[in-house]
């Protein structure tokens, strides 16, 4: 079993995937490769786990941002006493 050139290219430039939002393209390439039987179902499952992990990572980012936003709002609502 040999993965296609397009898939290798898509996976090789991980920085571009992260910055340019090419996850969709990579996913479609993987699905195509699976249909052509260039990669196995186990590979696709592993990729699914990676994407799910990325999703969880985003979730953590989101939680952090939510807390930051909440704390900023609470800090803004604090009453500042004038210095004596």
């Amino acid at each position, binding site marked *: 079993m040999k993965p296609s050139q397009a898939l290798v290219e898509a996976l090789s430039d991980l920085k571009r995937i992260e910055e340019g939002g090419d*996850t969709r393209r990579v996913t479609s390439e993987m*699905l195509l490769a699976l249909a052509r039987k260039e990669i196995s179902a186990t590979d696709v499952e592993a990729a699914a786990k990676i994407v799910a992990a990325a999703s969880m990572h985003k979730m953590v980012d989101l939680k952090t941002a939510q807390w930051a936003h909440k704390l900023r709002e609470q800090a803004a609502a604090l009453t500042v006493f004038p210095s004596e």
Partner: protein
Amino acid sequence: MPVKDIAGQRYHRLLVLSRGPNTEAGSARWNCLCDCGSEKLVLGGGLRSGHTKSCGCLNLEVREKNIANGLAGRWERYQETKAARECCGSRVCLDCGQQKPLTEYGKNSSLRDGTQNRCRACSVARVVDWYGLNMETRRSYARGHYHAHADVAKQRTRDWRERNPEKVREMSRRAVDGISAGYAASLLKVPLGSAPTNLINLKREQLYLRRLARALKQAAIQSLEKL
């Protein structure tokens, strides 16, 4: 049969002055003076029954009052409309009362002039109001109609999908990518207006990745099932 003399008597606004000439059928008529100052020849029966109360001035006054209160006046409005239509190709809308050109009205061949009585904007507003008031009725009717003709509707959808593969592809692509900001805000349980943009975008990205992961997993499962 002798006629009762009612000269000098008052019936509402009419004061009976003297006996007048009979009608051709032989009914007695009386010369009356109205409060408005005009004289009129009135049937005696009409005076006694209360059918005739004035020379006609009372009727005009009541009508003006009713028009002022919005209880009458359709005939007047029709006359205005007719005159406007004949002179400059426009008419007065029954709802908003504005004079608009005939192009502003829909067609209705069952009416005399071939156009609707209400302008397009007022017609649309009436329909919208009606739908708002009868939403449940409409929904139940549509639901019943769909269930009665479900096979036809499904076949029609299948045919359309076969005819328009590009549109179907586009729709499915939008279904994957189309995570709206409102949906993300609803998942975050914050109102869309007050939620910061970076939070919304993060949520959208996270949802997008989760969908991709799910699609990959499903593909892997299907592939394993085939084996």
